[in-house]
């Protein structure tokens, strides 16, 4: 009998039970557990804190349903683009072309209606198709040609933006004209009011989009695969995930969502302007990162991005209402971004 098998003699009388999973559940440990299993809670806490602080400083000017829903309107576009950005960043990529896709799609919706004379619904469909197609090209280059996402989308950003200026001839289509001839383009700008709170359809779209994506990422196989690809692409491929298909679908979906953002944008500003959306890239990435999604992929939740976008919105409106001038606002927002994430980090640490 071999030694190793000899050693196994000690196993004969084994009587281990299945490990039991119950434990004392104190309040603190419950909170800790909640924070661990819902990473979006931390940015939510930061958000509530900042609303409270500005509310205390500004009173009802800020703490009214009107002002609070105004923040929602102001962040809706960055938030929609941020939702798309979240998907890409979860796969350990980055999409610098989101802003350009958004503007180009909105320009196509407008120009196809007014220059080519297409029915608005068809023009909108064309805009959505173009956005989706650009997203698909991004995905194809990333997944098939294996180029770094940063480079692919940087190049696509320039291409889409230049195409946008070239095609539109730098012309803005005025709100009055759209209102008169193609109100469908402004669909997402319509709003309804519930006791002082103003909700535009764009805001509703934003919220629904985030909820749907949160559901998909958490409760479907595709969602788990997105996380797996971002976490360790090699391991994901070895364990049976079609990483290419996932990447292509993520970028394509991102393109579609950005095209929708373009439509929402028309609703928000009323007109179709080729110079919109220039800071959508950096702002969407900021929302994603403040929301606790790791730029290295595979970690974080899209609800976090939602709260992250709102945090920036609260700071911006709050500081403006406090009367800080623009440069001071930028300076303070810079400091607050660092501060918000430091608080986030600290909460995670003490709750570990």
């Amino acid at each position, binding site marked *: 009998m071999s030694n190793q098998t000899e050693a196994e003699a000690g196993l004969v009388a084994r009587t281990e039970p299945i490990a039991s999973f119950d434990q004392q559940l104190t309040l603190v440990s419950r909170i800790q557990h909640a924070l661990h299993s819902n990473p979006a809670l931390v940015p939510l806490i930061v958000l509530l804190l900042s609303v409270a602080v500005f509310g205390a400083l500004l009173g009802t000017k800020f703490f009214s349903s009107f002002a609070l829903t105004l923040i929602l309107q102001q962040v809706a576009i960055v938030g929609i683009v941020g939702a798309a950005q979240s998907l890409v960043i979860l796969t350990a990529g980055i999409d610098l072309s989101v802003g350009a896709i958004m503007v180009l799609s909105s320009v196509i919706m407008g120009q196809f209606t007014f220059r080519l004379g297409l029915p608005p619904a068809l023009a909108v469909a064309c805009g959505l198709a173009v956005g989706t197609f650009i997203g698909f090209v991004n995905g194809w280059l990333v997944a098939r040609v294996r180029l770094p996402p940063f480079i692919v989308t940087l190049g696509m950003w320039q291409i889409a933006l230049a195409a946008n*200026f070239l095609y539109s001839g*730098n012309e803005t289509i*005025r709100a009055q004209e759209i209102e008169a001839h193609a109100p469908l383009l402004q669909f997402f700008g319509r709003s309804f009011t519930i006791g002082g709170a103003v909700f535009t359809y764009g805001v509703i779209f934003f919220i629904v989009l985030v909820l749907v994506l949160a559901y998909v990422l958490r409760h479907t196989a595709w969602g788990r695969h997105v996380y797996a690809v971002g976490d360790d692409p090699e391991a994901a491929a070895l364990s049976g995930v079609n990483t290419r298909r996932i990447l292509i679908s993520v970028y394509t979906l991102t393109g579609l969502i950005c095209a929708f953002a373009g439509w929402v944008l028309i609703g928000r500003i009323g007109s179709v*302007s080729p110079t*919109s959306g220039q800071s959508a890239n950096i702002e969407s990435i900021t929302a994603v990162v403040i929301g606790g999604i790791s730029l290295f992929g595979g970690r974080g939740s899209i609800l976090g991005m939602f709260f992250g976008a709102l945090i920036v919105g609260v700071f911006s*409106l709050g500081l403006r*209402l406090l009367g800080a*001038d*623009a440069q001071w606002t930028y300076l303070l927002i810079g400091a607050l971004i660092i501060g918000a994430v430091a608080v986030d980090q600290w909460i995670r640490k003490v709750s570990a």
Partner: protein
Amino acid sequence: QDVTACLITKTDTNPFFVKMKEGAEAKAAELGVTLKSFAGRIDGDHETQVAAIETCIADGASGILIAASDTSAIVQSVQQARDAGLVVIALDTPLTPIDAADATFATDNFLAGELIGKWAAGKLGDEAANAKIAMLNLGISQPTVDVLRNQGFLQGFGIELGDPNKWGDETDPRIVGHDVTDGNEEGGRRAMENLLAKDPTINVVHTINEPSAAGAYEALKSFGRENDVLIVSVDGGCPGVANVKEGVIGATSQQYPLQMAALGVEAIRAWADTGAKPEPTPGKDFFDTGVALVTDEPVEGVESIDSDEGAALCWG
């Protein structure tokens, strides 16, 4: 009573708007108006301006002074503000349509361009027919000021325009090329280098503003061409006027942002007190705050002031 006014500029990094803000602040302090100022991040960033308008409405301001980044895109928000009972005055850049604002205090940017175009043509005399022109513009998104100054210059110089709503579609062989500068020295130098590499015989340079002119001058200097090229520009800031005096810039069209801002604040005060709106300049659909050509080498047929006079009026 308490009057709050908002000033929304395109950016607050361009000295032009910084001075506009200073002018507004001084006037506001004099008239007892609370002034809050906002700005876009970059030229063309009209979304931040929309957010600023919304903030002003939420803040209960009496009026808004705005230098619009996109003259059409901003109109719907302006309408919202007017519906909420605010008076909205466009500064520097008229809205499209111009009556979307209650009033407009602006420079005629096309005229500003035209003045320097005429001056350059006059300065070259007969040689104007063989000129080699470099056009240093603002950005590829072609903001309206950029287009107006560019097209104004070409018209003034006597070049046939293509579509007057965009630059870059003229076919005149005298134009060596267009390039973009972002309105700063660095971009000015790079753009000038690019165009000089393309054609080293350039002898006229149109620049969108004085910082890009200073950058272009550095490039010309490194090519050893600083003394035989005409640089023209628009703005009339103090460094620019000083550069005219020293011969760096041949001529510049001077604008008056302090005046625009001061007039704007006065108008809001008046509106809050009496409900009266300002009247436009007779014969124009806006209140023209004027533009003057500053040069030390005046040319027949183009009215101008010299650099000392310009320095007395300059804004930053």
